[in-house]
Protein backbone atom coordinates (compact mmCIF):
# COMPACT_ATOMS: atom_id res chain seq x y z
CA UNK A 1 0.00 0.00 0.00
CA UNK A 2 2.87 2.29 0.84
CA UNK A 3 4.28 1.94 -2.63
CA UNK A 4 0.89 2.75 -4.08
CA UNK A 5 0.64 5.82 -1.94
CA UNK A 6 4.11 6.92 -2.98
CA UNK A 7 3.17 6.58 -6.67
CA UNK A 8 -0.01 8.53 -6.12
CA UNK A 9 1.97 11.21 -4.32
CA UNK A 10 4.36 11.45 -7.26
CA UNK A 11 1.48 11.76 -9.71
CA UNK A 12 -0.03 14.45 -7.55
CA UNK A 13 3.25 16.38 -7.55
CA UNK A 14 3.52 16.10 -11.33
CA UNK A 15 -0.08 17.25 -11.67
CA UNK A 16 0.66 20.23 -9.46
CA UNK A 17 3.77 21.05 -11.48
CA UNK A 18 1.81 20.87 -14.74
CA UNK A 19 -0.93 23.06 -13.27
CA UNK A 20 1.65 25.51 -11.99
CA UNK A 21 4.06 25.70 -14.96
CA UNK A 22 2.10 24.10 -17.84
CA UNK A 23 0.31 27.19 -19.12
CA UNK A 24 3.58 29.14 -18.89
CA UNK A 25 5.48 26.47 -20.87
CA UNK A 26 2.77 26.30 -23.53
CA UNK A 27 2.67 30.10 -23.83
CA UNK A 28 6.48 30.21 -24.03
CA UNK A 29 6.51 27.58 -26.75
CA UNK A 30 3.84 29.47 -28.71
CA UNK A 31 5.86 32.67 -28.39
CA UNK A 32 9.01 30.87 -29.54
CA UNK A 33 7.27 29.37 -32.59
CA UNK A 34 5.62 32.69 -33.51
CA UNK A 35 8.97 34.43 -33.03
CA UNK A 36 10.75 31.97 -35.31
CA UNK A 37 8.11 32.31 -38.03
CA UNK A 38 8.17 36.12 -37.80
CA UNK A 39 11.98 36.18 -37.85
CA UNK A 40 12.02 33.95 -40.95
CA UNK A 41 9.49 36.19 -42.70
CA UNK A 42 11.50 39.24 -41.67
CA UNK A 43 14.65 37.61 -43.05
CA UNK A 44 12.95 37.01 -46.40
CA UNK A 45 11.26 40.37 -46.90
CA UNK A 46 13.93 42.61 -45.36
CA UNK A 47 16.43 41.12 -47.84
CA UNK A 48 14.12 42.02 -50.72
CA UNK A 49 13.52 45.54 -49.41
CA UNK A 50 17.17 46.27 -48.56
CA UNK A 51 18.27 44.99 -51.98
CA UNK A 52 16.40 47.93 -53.51
CA UNK A 53 18.70 50.29 -51.58
CA UNK A 54 21.62 49.00 -53.66
CA UNK A 55 23.56 47.87 -50.60
CA UNK A 56 26.52 45.61 -51.18
CA UNK A 57 25.59 41.95 -50.85
CA UNK A 58 28.01 41.46 -47.94
CA UNK A 59 26.69 44.50 -46.02
CA UNK A 60 23.13 43.41 -46.69
CA UNK A 61 23.80 39.95 -45.28
CA UNK A 62 25.40 41.36 -42.12
CA UNK A 63 22.52 43.81 -41.50
CA UNK A 64 19.82 41.19 -42.09
CA UNK A 65 21.57 38.53 -39.97
CA UNK A 66 22.13 40.93 -37.07
CA UNK A 67 18.46 41.98 -37.12
CA UNK A 68 17.44 38.30 -37.33
CA UNK A 69 19.49 37.43 -34.25
CA UNK A 70 18.08 40.43 -32.35
CA UNK A 71 14.50 39.38 -33.14
CA UNK A 72 15.18 35.80 -32.04
CA UNK A 73 16.82 37.06 -28.83
CA UNK A 74 13.81 39.29 -28.13
CA UNK A 75 11.37 36.39 -28.50
CA UNK A 76 13.55 34.06 -26.39
CA UNK A 77 13.59 36.70 -23.65
CA UNK A 78 9.80 37.05 -23.86
CA UNK A 79 9.37 33.28 -23.69
CA UNK A 80 11.66 33.11 -20.67
CA UNK A 81 9.63 35.80 -18.94
CA UNK A 82 6.44 33.79 -19.50
CA UNK A 83 8.17 30.86 -17.83
CA UNK A 84 8.50 32.98 -14.74
CA UNK A 85 12.10 34.11 -14.99
CA UNK A 86 12.84 37.64 -13.86
CA UNK A 87 14.00 40.20 -16.42
CA UNK A 88 17.31 40.67 -14.60
CA UNK A 89 18.03 36.94 -14.67
CA UNK A 90 17.14 36.72 -18.38
CA UNK A 91 19.46 39.66 -19.11
CA UNK A 92 22.29 37.99 -17.23
CA UNK A 93 21.80 34.69 -19.04
CA UNK A 94 21.77 36.39 -22.46
CA UNK A 95 24.88 38.43 -21.64
CA UNK A 96 26.59 35.28 -20.39
CA UNK A 97 25.75 33.31 -23.54
CA UNK A 98 26.93 36.21 -25.74
CA UNK A 99 30.26 36.44 -23.89
CA UNK A 100 30.83 32.70 -24.15
CA UNK A 101 30.09 32.74 -27.90
CA UNK A 102 32.41 35.74 -28.47
CA UNK A 103 35.10 34.00 -26.41
CA UNK A 104 34.79 30.81 -28.44
CA UNK A 105 35.03 32.73 -31.71
CA UNK A 106 38.05 34.76 -30.54
CA UNK A 107 39.92 31.76 -29.14
CA UNK A 108 39.18 29.31 -31.91
CA UNK A 109 39.19 31.71 -34.85
CA UNK A 110 42.74 30.79 -35.93
CA UNK A 111 41.65 27.15 -36.07
CA UNK A 112 38.48 27.83 -38.07
CA UNK A 113 39.16 27.55 -41.81
CA UNK A 114 38.06 30.76 -43.50
CA UNK A 115 36.68 30.91 -46.99
CA UNK A 116 38.77 32.86 -49.48
CA UNK A 117 35.89 35.08 -50.59
CA UNK A 118 33.01 37.18 -49.33
CA UNK A 119 29.40 37.44 -50.35
CA UNK A 120 29.13 39.34 -53.63
CA UNK A 121 32.53 38.24 -54.98
CA UNK A 122 32.81 36.66 -58.41
CA UNK A 123 34.72 33.41 -58.08
CA UNK A 124 35.72 30.36 -60.05
CA UNK A 125 36.06 27.07 -58.29
CA UNK A 126 36.68 23.98 -60.35
CA UNK A 127 34.72 24.57 -63.53
CA UNK A 128 32.12 26.69 -61.77
CA UNK A 129 32.08 30.45 -62.39
CA UNK A 130 29.61 32.72 -60.62
CA UNK A 131 28.80 35.21 -57.91
CA UNK A 132 28.75 34.21 -54.23
CA UNK A 133 25.22 34.77 -52.96
CA UNK A 134 25.66 33.50 -49.43
CA UNK A 135 27.41 31.09 -47.13
CA UNK A 136 26.02 28.80 -44.46
CA UNK A 137 27.73 26.48 -42.00
CA UNK A 138 27.71 23.67 -44.57
CA UNK A 139 27.92 25.18 -48.02
CA UNK A 140 28.38 28.19 -50.29
CA UNK A 141 25.60 29.38 -52.54
CA UNK A 142 26.90 30.44 -55.95
CA UNK A 143 24.79 32.05 -58.65
CA UNK A 144 26.19 31.25 -62.08
CA UNK A 145 25.92 33.74 -64.94
CA UNK A 146 23.41 31.53 -66.74
CA UNK A 147 21.03 31.86 -63.79
CA UNK A 148 21.64 28.62 -61.86
CA UNK A 149 21.98 28.59 -58.07
CA UNK A 150 24.51 25.98 -57.03
CA UNK A 151 25.26 24.87 -53.47
CA UNK A 152 28.92 23.97 -53.16
CA UNK A 153 30.07 22.15 -49.99
CA UNK A 154 32.76 24.04 -48.11
CA UNK A 155 34.96 20.95 -48.22
CA UNK A 156 35.06 21.19 -52.01
CA UNK A 157 35.77 24.91 -51.95
CA UNK A 158 38.57 24.48 -49.43
CA UNK A 159 40.14 21.51 -51.18
CA UNK A 160 39.93 22.77 -54.76
CA UNK A 161 41.69 25.72 -56.37
CA UNK A 162 39.67 28.93 -56.33
CA UNK A 163 40.05 32.12 -58.33
CA UNK A 164 38.66 35.25 -56.69
CA UNK A 165 38.22 37.98 -59.28
CA UNK A 166 37.58 40.70 -56.69
CA UNK A 167 40.93 40.78 -54.95
CA UNK A 168 42.61 42.79 -57.69
CA UNK A 169 40.89 45.71 -59.41
CA UNK A 170 42.17 45.02 -62.92
CA UNK A 171 42.32 42.02 -65.18
CA UNK A 172 44.26 41.13 -68.30
CA UNK A 173 42.50 40.35 -71.55
CA UNK A 174 44.52 37.90 -73.63
CA UNK A 175 43.49 37.42 -77.21
CA UNK A 176 45.71 34.98 -79.08
CA UNK A 177 44.94 33.93 -82.64
CA UNK A 178 46.79 32.92 -85.79
CA UNK A 179 47.06 34.63 -89.17
CA UNK A 180 48.19 32.88 -92.33
CA UNK A 181 51.90 32.68 -93.12
CA UNK A 182 51.41 34.69 -96.31
CA UNK A 183 49.50 37.55 -94.66
CA UNK A 184 50.90 41.01 -93.93
CA UNK A 185 52.25 40.50 -90.43
CA UNK A 186 53.26 44.11 -89.79
CA UNK A 187 49.92 45.32 -91.14
CA UNK A 188 48.11 42.91 -88.82
CA UNK A 189 50.13 44.14 -85.83
CA UNK A 190 49.36 47.76 -86.73
CA UNK A 191 45.61 47.07 -86.99
CA UNK A 192 45.65 45.24 -83.66
CA UNK A 193 47.55 48.08 -81.98
CA UNK A 194 45.04 50.60 -83.33
CA UNK A 195 42.09 48.58 -82.09
CA UNK A 196 43.60 48.41 -78.60
CA UNK A 197 44.58 52.10 -78.61
CA UNK A 198 41.09 53.28 -79.58
CA UNK A 199 39.23 51.59 -76.75
CA UNK A 200 38.66 53.87 -73.74
CA UNK A 201 38.22 50.94 -71.37
CA UNK A 202 41.73 49.62 -71.92
CA UNK A 203 44.06 50.99 -69.26
CA UNK A 204 47.10 53.05 -70.21
CA UNK A 205 49.25 51.30 -67.64
CA UNK A 206 50.29 48.58 -67.94
CA UNK A 207 50.33 49.34 -71.67
CA UNK A 208 48.57 47.11 -74.18
CA UNK A 209 50.97 44.91 -76.15
CA UNK A 210 50.86 43.18 -79.50
CA UNK A 211 53.43 40.58 -80.43
CA UNK A 212 54.10 37.35 -82.28
CA UNK A 213 53.84 34.58 -79.75
CA UNK A 214 54.46 31.49 -81.86
CA UNK A 215 54.89 30.02 -85.32
CA UNK A 216 52.95 26.80 -85.55
CA UNK A 217 50.79 24.69 -87.83
CA UNK A 218 47.86 27.12 -87.53
CA UNK A 219 49.91 30.07 -88.75
CA UNK A 220 51.66 33.05 -87.20
CA UNK A 221 50.28 33.22 -83.69
CA UNK A 222 49.55 36.83 -82.69
CA UNK A 223 48.92 37.95 -79.13
CA UNK A 224 47.06 41.10 -78.09
CA UNK A 225 47.28 41.60 -74.34
CA UNK A 226 45.70 44.49 -72.52
CA UNK A 227 44.44 45.40 -69.05
CA UNK A 228 40.96 46.55 -68.11
CA UNK A 229 39.00 47.07 -64.93
CA UNK A 230 37.44 43.88 -63.62
CA UNK A 231 33.94 45.17 -64.31
CA UNK A 232 34.76 45.87 -67.97
CA UNK A 233 36.45 42.53 -68.68
CA UNK A 234 33.76 40.51 -70.36
CA UNK A 235 32.19 43.24 -72.49
CA UNK A 236 35.57 44.59 -73.63
CA UNK A 237 36.79 41.13 -74.57
CA UNK A 238 33.68 40.48 -76.67
CA UNK A 239 34.00 43.89 -78.34
CA UNK A 240 37.67 43.34 -79.16
CA UNK A 241 36.97 39.97 -80.74
CA UNK A 242 34.23 41.46 -82.90
CA UNK A 243 36.41 44.41 -83.94
CA UNK A 244 39.38 42.19 -84.77
CA UNK A 245 37.26 39.90 -86.94
CA UNK A 246 35.63 42.72 -88.89
CA UNK A 247 38.74 44.89 -89.26
CA UNK A 248 40.88 41.96 -90.40
CA UNK A 249 38.22 41.00 -92.94
CA UNK A 250 38.12 44.60 -94.14
CA UNK A 251 41.91 44.82 -94.40
CA UNK A 252 42.05 41.50 -96.21
CA UNK A 253 44.14 39.81 -93.56
CA UNK A 254 43.26 36.14 -93.40
CA UNK A 255 43.13 34.19 -90.19
CA UNK A 256 45.26 31.11 -89.97
CA UNK A 257 43.78 27.68 -89.75
CA UNK A 258 45.20 24.21 -89.75
CA UNK A 259 44.93 22.47 -93.12
CA UNK A 260 46.08 19.03 -94.00
CA UNK A 261 47.49 17.94 -97.31
CA UNK A 262 47.29 14.19 -97.68
CA UNK A 263 49.72 12.42 -99.98
CA UNK A 264 48.52 8.95 -100.87
CA UNK A 265 51.16 6.39 -101.73
CA UNK A 266 50.67 4.96 -105.18
CA UNK A 267 48.44 7.78 -106.38
CA UNK A 268 49.08 9.55 -109.71
CA UNK A 269 52.74 10.52 -109.75
CA UNK A 270 52.69 12.90 -112.69
CA UNK A 271 55.05 15.79 -112.09
CA UNK A 272 56.20 14.43 -108.78
CA UNK A 273 59.46 12.97 -107.71
CA UNK A 274 59.94 9.55 -106.25
CA UNK A 275 60.60 11.11 -102.90
CA UNK A 276 57.16 12.73 -103.00
CA UNK A 277 55.54 9.41 -103.58
CA UNK A 278 57.26 7.93 -100.59
CA UNK A 279 55.40 10.31 -98.35
CA UNK A 280 52.62 8.21 -97.00
CA UNK A 281 51.90 10.01 -93.78
CA UNK A 282 49.74 13.00 -93.23
CA UNK A 283 51.56 16.28 -93.66
CA UNK A 284 50.38 19.43 -92.00
CA UNK A 285 50.47 22.50 -94.09
CA UNK A 286 49.17 25.94 -93.37
CA UNK A 287 47.63 27.90 -96.20
Amino acid at each position, binding site marked *: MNAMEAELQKLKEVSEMVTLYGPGIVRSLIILVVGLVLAKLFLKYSRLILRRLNLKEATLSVVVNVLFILIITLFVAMAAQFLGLKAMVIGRILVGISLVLIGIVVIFRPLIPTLPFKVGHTVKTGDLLGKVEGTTLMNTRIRTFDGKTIFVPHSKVLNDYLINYHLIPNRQIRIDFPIGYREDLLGAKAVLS*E*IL*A*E*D*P*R*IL*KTPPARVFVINLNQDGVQLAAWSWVKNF*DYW*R*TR*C*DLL*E*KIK*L*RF*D*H*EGIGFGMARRLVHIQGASSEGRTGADNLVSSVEDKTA
Partner: protein
Amino acid sequence: MDLKEAMKMIGAGWIQRPKGFRVRFDRRQGDQWISDAFPSEGEPLLTSDVMAWELARRFAEAARKEATGEAEGEISGITVVDDKGRPVTFYGTDGIHVLNPRVQA
Protein backbone atom coordinates in the same frame (compact mmCIF):
# COMPACT_ATOMS: atom_id res chain seq x y z
CA MET B 1 66.99 62.61 -77.92
CA ASP B 2 66.57 60.35 -74.93
CA LEU B 3 64.12 57.47 -74.84
CA LYS B 4 61.68 59.25 -72.54
CA GLU B 5 61.44 62.22 -74.90
CA ALA B 6 61.00 59.95 -77.91
CA MET B 7 58.24 57.99 -76.17
CA LYS B 8 56.48 61.24 -75.34
CA MET B 9 56.61 62.29 -78.99
CA ILE B 10 55.37 58.89 -80.15
CA GLY B 11 52.54 59.07 -77.62
CA ALA B 12 51.49 62.54 -78.83
CA GLY B 13 51.40 61.38 -82.44
CA TRP B 14 49.62 58.14 -81.67
CA ILE B 15 45.86 57.61 -81.55
CA GLN B 16 44.23 59.82 -78.93
CA ARG B 17 42.07 57.57 -76.83
CA PRO B 18 38.54 58.97 -76.45
CA LYS B 19 36.88 59.08 -73.03
CA GLY B 20 33.67 57.67 -74.47
CA PHE B 21 31.12 57.83 -77.22
CA ARG B 22 27.79 59.43 -78.06
CA VAL B 23 25.28 58.90 -80.83
CA ARG B 24 24.75 62.22 -82.61
CA PHE B 25 21.86 63.06 -84.90
CA ASP B 26 19.95 65.98 -86.42
CA ARG B 27 16.30 66.64 -85.66
CA ARG B 28 14.02 68.76 -87.83
CA GLN B 29 12.46 71.66 -85.89
CA GLY B 30 10.48 74.15 -87.88
CA ASP B 31 12.56 75.08 -90.87
CA GLN B 32 15.92 74.10 -89.45
CA TRP B 33 17.91 71.09 -88.28
CA ILE B 34 18.90 70.99 -84.61
CA SER B 35 21.84 68.82 -83.60
CA ASP B 36 21.27 66.52 -80.63
CA ALA B 37 22.98 63.48 -79.08
CA PHE B 38 22.54 60.73 -76.55
CA PRO B 39 23.71 60.23 -73.87
CA SER B 40 23.26 63.97 -73.37
CA GLU B 41 25.74 66.29 -71.67
CA GLY B 42 26.13 65.40 -68.01
CA GLU B 43 25.15 61.76 -68.50
CA PRO B 44 27.91 59.12 -68.48
CA LEU B 45 29.30 58.44 -71.95
CA LEU B 46 29.09 55.05 -73.62
CA THR B 47 32.42 53.31 -73.13
CA SER B 48 31.95 50.84 -75.96
CA ASP B 49 31.98 51.99 -79.58
CA VAL B 50 30.52 48.61 -80.53
CA MET B 51 27.54 49.38 -78.35
CA ALA B 52 27.38 52.97 -79.63
CA TRP B 53 27.23 51.81 -83.26
CA GLU B 54 24.65 49.18 -82.36
CA LEU B 55 22.49 51.83 -80.68
CA ALA B 56 22.97 54.13 -83.68
CA ARG B 57 21.83 51.38 -86.02
CA ARG B 58 18.74 50.61 -83.96
CA PHE B 59 17.99 54.32 -83.57
CA ALA B 60 18.24 54.77 -87.33
CA GLU B 61 15.85 51.87 -87.90
CA ALA B 62 13.40 53.25 -85.35
CA ALA B 63 13.57 56.76 -86.82
CA ARG B 64 13.32 55.65 -90.42
CA LYS B 65 9.95 56.45 -91.97
CA GLU B 66 8.77 58.05 -95.14
CA ALA B 67 11.70 60.40 -95.22
CA THR B 68 10.89 63.65 -96.88
CA GLY B 69 13.60 65.67 -95.21
CA GLU B 70 11.07 68.30 -94.28
CA ALA B 71 8.73 66.72 -91.74
CA GLU B 72 8.67 68.12 -88.23
CA GLY B 73 10.66 65.98 -85.77
CA GLU B 74 12.32 63.96 -88.52
CA ILE B 75 15.67 62.49 -87.52
CA SER B 76 18.63 62.08 -89.81
CA GLY B 77 22.40 62.15 -89.94
CA ILE B 78 22.90 59.57 -87.19
CA THR B 79 26.51 58.84 -86.40
CA VAL B 80 28.83 58.09 -83.50
CA VAL B 81 31.05 60.80 -82.04
CA ASP B 82 33.62 60.83 -79.26
CA ASP B 83 33.60 62.93 -76.09
CA LYS B 84 34.88 65.94 -78.04
CA GLY B 85 32.23 65.63 -80.73
CA ARG B 86 34.60 64.27 -83.39
CA PRO B 87 33.16 61.60 -85.69
CA VAL B 88 34.30 58.09 -84.82
CA THR B 89 35.18 55.63 -87.54
CA PHE B 90 33.11 52.46 -87.72
CA TYR B 91 35.33 49.70 -86.38
CA GLY B 92 34.37 47.29 -89.16
CA THR B 93 35.40 49.48 -92.07
CA ASP B 94 37.64 52.11 -90.49
CA GLY B 95 35.51 54.74 -92.24
CA ILE B 96 33.09 57.45 -91.15
CA HIS B 97 29.47 56.37 -91.58
CA VAL B 98 26.29 58.41 -91.39
CA LEU B 99 23.09 56.41 -90.96
CA ASN B 100 19.78 57.76 -92.20
CA PRO B 101 21.41 60.55 -94.18
CA ARG B 102 19.44 63.71 -94.86
CA VAL B 103 17.31 63.61 -97.98
CA GLN B 104 18.48 66.21 -100.42
CA ALA B 105 15.58 68.15 -101.91
